[in-house]
């Protein structure tokens, strides 16, 4: 039976991500009172881009082409490590959360390198910001993982986001709530959502992610969009894993429940983007440090009973 679940897992990872973007845009449109782009617009963009020809600048080298490739591969690999909807991850092992974070790091390394390769001031600016904010996001993520590891007593993502979390919510709900909020903040930062970065702005000075991919075009841009979607899927699965600990009573019901929770999270992200404006760049670090302190507070709460 587990083979089927692994196939479904891979299928979901490959198919679902662009849909999340569609739901987010639809929610924002609903809030703004407009009709908004169709649900499957992201898929159409991808197919269009894959068919287009591409233009490369004189100053770029092979690193420029490697950026999108590595970003997508690492995103997909990270998705394989995550247990979706209570089912064991196809490739789980003890300490896999480190490999996940550092795989995303590899993706970030090559994306920023590709940006710097064009030799333009704007890409450099995007790269600098991307790297700076991720420096603050990773400690928050790790503090969260520490709390999960301590609460679930396991050192693998399968254990941390698995059924034990349900029991953990009962015994020490407060720390898990704090971790959930900080993971949400990390999701918004890493995927350049509104409070930290505006995905569809056209003013280079305000962008982070968009400005890094200014010079990409054609299939390479397609890969980048798809990789961004997969990354959003990974972080969403992480948040859902903590927020909605699904029992494994009935595997099929678990899959449906997980997909529903995912889409609900997309709606939540859409709502957040509609009601908040983009923060000034200098404010972002303070909010990220606040996320770190939140999950650190989670640990202190957890520690209260053993010392």
């Amino acid at each position, binding site marked *: 039976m587990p083979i089927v679940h692994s196939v479904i897992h891979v299928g979901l990872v490959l198919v679902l991500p662009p849909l999340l973007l569609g739901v987010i845009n639809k929610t924002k449109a609903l809030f703004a009172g407009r009709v908004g782009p169709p649900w499957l617009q992201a898929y159409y963009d991808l197919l269009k881009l894959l068919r287009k020809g591409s233009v490369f600048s004189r100053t770029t*080298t092979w*690193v420029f082409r490697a950026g999108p490739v590595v970003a997508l591969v690492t995103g997909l690999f990270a998705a394989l490590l995550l247990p979706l909807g209570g089912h064991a991850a196809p490739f789980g092992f003890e300490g896999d959360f480190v490999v996940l974070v550092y795989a995303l790091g*590899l993706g970030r390394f090559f994306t920023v390198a590709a940006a710097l*390769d064009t030799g333009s001031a704007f890409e450099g600016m995007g790269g600098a910001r991307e790297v*700076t904010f991720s420096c603050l996001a990773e400690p928050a993520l790790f503090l969260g993982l520490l709390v999960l590891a301590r609460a679930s007593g396991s050192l693998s993502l399968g254990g941390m986001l698995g059924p034990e979390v349900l029991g953990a919510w009962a015994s020490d709900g407060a720390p898990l709530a704090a971790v959930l909020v900080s993971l949400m903040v990390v999701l918004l930062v890493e995927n350049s959502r509104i409070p930290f970065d505006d995905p569809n702005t056209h003013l280079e000075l305000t962008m982070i992610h968009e400005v890094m991919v200014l010079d990409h075009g054609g299939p*390479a841009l397609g890969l980048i969009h798809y990789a961004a979607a997969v990354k959003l899927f990974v972080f969403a699965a992480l948040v859902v894993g903590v927020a909605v600990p699904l029992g494994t009573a009935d595997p099929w019901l678990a899959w449906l429940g997980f997909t529903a929770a995912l889409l609900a999270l997309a709606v939540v992200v859409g709502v957040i983007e509609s009601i908040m404006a983009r923060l000034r760049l200098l404010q972002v670090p303070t909010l990220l440090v606040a996320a770190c302190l939140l999950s650190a507070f989670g640990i202190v709460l957890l520690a209260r009973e053993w010392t």
Partner: protein
Amino acid sequence: MSEWLVVAAIVLAGASGVAGLLGGRGGAAGERIAALAMFAAGGCGLVAGFAGLLGGEPGLLQAAWPVPGGRFALQVDPLSALFVVQISLIAPLGSLYGLGYWAQRDHPENGARLRAFYGLVVAGMLLLVVARNAVLFLVGWELMALAAFLTITTEDEQRAVREAGYLYLVATRFGTLCLFAMFGLLFAASGTLEFEGWSRAMRSPLADAVFVLALLGFGLKAGVMPLHVWLPGAHANAPSHVSALMSGVLIKMGIYGLARITSLYALPPPWWGHALVGLGVVSAVLGVAFALGQHDLKRLLAYHSVENIGIICIGLGVALLGRSLGRDDLVALGLAGALLHTWNHGLFKALLFLSAGSVLHATGTRDLDRLGGLSRQMPSTALAFLVGAVAICGLPPLNGLVSELLVYLGLFRLVGGESGRAWLAGALAAPALALVGALAIACFVKAFGTVFLGAPRSRATVGAHEAGASMLAPMGVLAACCFGIGLGAPLVVPLLGPAVASWSGAPLAVPLGQLAPLRSVAVASASILAACALLGAWLAARTRRAAGAVGTWDCGYAAPGPRMQYSSSSFADTLVRLFSWALRPEASELRLREAFPPPAAFRSHVPDTVLDRVLLPGFRAADRVLGWLRLLQRGSVHLYLLYVVATVVALLLWR
């Protein structure tokens, strides 16, 4: 048997340079003989090292040595073997690199001298790693230190090199004096200067003092944060293959020393583990923060050595905590992580320094803001630097991830299983390690980007040409090793088993293979690599018919100049400002008052806080105070006679 091989290696390495000296000034023959001798030494060392690692009970080669307190005792136990292997791998590669980088014909006056002392440094290191007697250890230690000083100051006509050399010499001497005191205390506690005699010494109250002195002496050589002051200057000003040897292997002698001394303690007090983890965290975070602010490529790499030493100290700290809490798994994970990171850092840091060396050799400058776009002229060096950069940040396909994973697992197990205050160290260190990982990525993207990618920022890179074969070969070997350990982790990590066992004194309860997911990491790295290759091939095929060469689109900006690219300081500006409480960056203020302001230049610089804000002012103040004491010698005979009489009277009254 392996002891004799190490002796052969020591003699060969020591003598390798002498041939060069005899070869006369133009002696190209001397160069090659030196390199050959170093390779032979490396060969012997590798055989001895692996024999020591895999072999069973280590033999003890000893002979009488008619020196007070001295005994010629050598032993290649697994812990020493590990360092012998590292020395024997990197030293020959460095010397091969030296053939191209510091050819005798380009540097007739100091080429032979550099090779002679390079050989002596290697000999000193090999000797101290297998020495089992305090006096022999100190002879090896100082031979290494002095020879390293003489290699650093090869180009001593430049003022900066002299200053860096003097700072290194003074710092090394301070470390050596701490070791004198430590060995004195160990002698007082146990009555002997032999290493194996000391395990009894450890219950005495002097144990804490011995540990502090070991931390000072060995920490200074390793470059732990507050004691790292000599490291950036020395690495930046030394010839690149010497910097590679120093940051790859020489600072690891400090780690070997710490490991050896802490291995003597059956039940170390917990504060030792906390101290080491604390120092490790400080060194790691501030090390990489300082690296971010640097403009000089080799200083940047030097600060990264401080960061990686911090990671190794965290691993060692976890091992110590494991031993004081009685948790064998923590000991195994922590120590294996630390020792593997010692190997890994030796490999990728040497690779980075060698590639930085070929950049310096080609362009003549280390200043990041005058480089750029070098990957077109120097593709192989760019690839080597990229492999080194990816490895040092601990990113998947390469070896950095394996050792950091072991340390992470140690920390998480510390937090997971422990009650009481011990988990605090883990809770602090794990996120700090994550922060360091992210900062490392920021720093190395900046370094790689500003040097190799984008457009050249000044005319320095015009004449740049790819490095010669003798410079690329070592880089190739090191890169292959990085991939080897990264993908072959399940084969390499178990090698550390005996070393961990010999450190903790008891055989490992759970073999390393089970403790850490080595096979999974290897599979993960391989799969990522394969997937990237496949997708890359597809994208390359798909975009083969790319349109003609066009300038960067850059949102249609009319005339982007190369100077507008992000330079090293602007890229790291926000992060440097975040860490400004520690870095204290200095920048030239731009006050534009009048309507048409004159042309102004902006210069920012991150001084070494510990050195420039604490030590130098301290020494200057001490110098002023001493200034007045010097008035005692004012030259008048009467005064001097008065001193004599005063001494007589004082001593008579004091009686």
